[in-house]
């Protein structure tokens, strides 16, 4: 009599272990799927870096690094490969864009998150999402046809292309991204913090500047990083309004050039395996490197323990 019962028990345990095994397998498969996704991104990034740097560093066979980084004479057909104008230009343009964009974006985000009535929020947020999705060539085209003649007429400058036009177009482009992410960060600040502030007699301004913004700081920094990387890498809109001339444009109104615009202007027009081609690859590598450094710097700015 004991036999059948034992048999049933064993069978039951077998099915049980089978079920467990399937569960384990599923669990493992999921783990490996996630790992593979993460790895493929890593491999892609790694191969981009290897490929670009391999080609790019060939430039130093013909050009000294001193000339490449510190000379401002970019005349490739005369064998002069000084990229200082473009490197400084990229940093300067990104800096200008952030200076113009951050205060406005923050103000809009605070308005949408803290002050606007609900119906207006429901209009503003989809509108900002739509603005994020507008292709950069559209912004560039508007800059070329509307902004540049306007700048020329108001400032009396000759051409109108330059850092001012580029920074304004970039600000316009980056603004919705920074605003939306800051908005989310501000909304994520717990309501009880604000209520505690009001209970202690704070005004709205005090609550926003002393409680909400410090609490939302990590999210706002992320927004600025994303906006910044977009500004550094933006090409099509910039190339249409910057003037594409290898000279410094500190006064904001002289036609000049940055890394991205110079690469896109010239990369299809140079011979393969020429020093010029390598120099353009080196500039692409520098772009990667600059955005990496800027991201690290901003991450370091975050308060510890977050």
């Amino acid at each position, binding site marked *: 009599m004991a036999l059948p019962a034992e048999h049933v028990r064993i069978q039951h345990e077998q099915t049980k272990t089978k079920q467990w095994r399937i569960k384990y397998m599923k669990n493992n498969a999921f783990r490996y799927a996630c790992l593979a996704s993460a790895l493929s991104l890593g491999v892609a990034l790694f191969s981009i870096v290897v490929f670009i740097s391999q080609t790019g560093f060939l430039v130093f066979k013909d050009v000294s690094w001193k000339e490449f980084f510190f000379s401002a004479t970019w*005349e*490739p*057909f005369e064998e002069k490969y000084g990229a200082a104008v473009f490197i400084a230009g990229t940093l300067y343009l990104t800096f200008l864009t952030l200076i113009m964009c951050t205060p406005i974006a923050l103000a809009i985000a605070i308005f949408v998150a803290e002050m606007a009535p609900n119906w207006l929020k429901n209009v503003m947020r989809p509108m900002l999402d739509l603005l994020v999705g507008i292709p950069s060539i559209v912004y560039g085209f508007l800059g*070329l*046809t509307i902004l*540049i*003649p306007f700048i*020329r007429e108001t400032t009396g*400058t*000759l*051409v*109108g*292309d330059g850092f001012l036009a580029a920074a304004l177009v970039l600000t316009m482009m980056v603004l919705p991204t920074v605003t939306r992410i800051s908005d989310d960060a501000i909304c994520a600040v717990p309501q009880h913090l604000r209520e505690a502030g009001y209970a202690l007699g704070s005004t709205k301004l005090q609550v926003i500047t002393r409680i909400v913004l410090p609490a939302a700081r990590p999210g706002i920094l992320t927004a600025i990083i994303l906006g910044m990387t977009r500004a550094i890498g933006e090409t099509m809109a910039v*190339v*249409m309004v910057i*003037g*594409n*001339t*290898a*000279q410094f444009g500190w006064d904001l*109104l*002289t*036609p000049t050039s940055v890394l991205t615009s110079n690469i*896109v*202007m*010239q990369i*299809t*027009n*140079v*011979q*393969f395996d020429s020093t010029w081609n390598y120099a353009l690859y080196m500039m692409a590598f520098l772009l990667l490197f600059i955005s990496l450094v800027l991201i690290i710097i901003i991450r370091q700015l975050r308060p510890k323990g977050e």
Partner: protein
Amino acid sequence: MNLKSFIKKFSLVALSSSLLFGSSLTVTEKTEAAQQKGKIVVAGSSALLPLTQQAAKEFKKANPKVAISVSGTSSIVGPQSVSKGSATIGACDWDATKPVPGFSAFQGLNAYPIAVIPFATIVHKDNPVKNLTTKQLQDIFAGKIKNWKEVGGKDEPIIVVNRAHGSGTRVNYQMKALKGSSFMTQGENYKEVSSNGNMIKAVETTPNAIGYTDLAYIKGNIKAVAYNGVEATVTNVINGKYPVWGYGYLLTKGPATGANKAFIDFIQSKKFQQGSLKKLKFIPITAMKK
């Protein structure tokens, strides 16, 4: 008879008749042209792209067994990809078997002219200057003449708009209009643009600008300036008075063979040159007196 069955019957009739008609057409075409097989890859000049695309469409109809792919990026890509072997035909705005300003000659390629492309100096429509000489153009584009009044215009600074180095239009303009003299490279009255479209936009919106483009693109708020007293028109190009034009070339590695030869012959044929090519605003090569 209800409407549905009527539509059914009608479409049946239409379909069968079109099939009959279509098949009879292809039959005549098949007998007309010798059937070609093989692969044709065209790469290079974007200025010649409308032409090669149209030719590919028509050539494919007559030779369904040929696989053709056509793309356009920039002139220098044409000879480069043919030399490398990634394309069988390269399209280029200049004869890449000879050296031109900024580019050395490519060895081992054969060049076939397929169209005549005229170029013109352009200014804003409101600019009173009607004519410029070779010397004046050389000095303007070199940055030596800086004010319109020096060439008979208003007392306004000249803004020079140039194409990027390597543009086929720039190479031709530099060779034919400026006789090989160099361009300025910087200054607060100088800028470069990335395409014919951007060139036109820039001159259109800048009253004191000077630039150059393909003759076919000129309309709207820009106008062509006469060159040494000769108006930039198709007629003046054909009768030899207006010298600022260039041939568009197709290049092959060594002499063209098989399907590639047939394709080039097709583009050079009288039928295509007088038909589609003219419609696309190019000038037939046969129109030029040699």
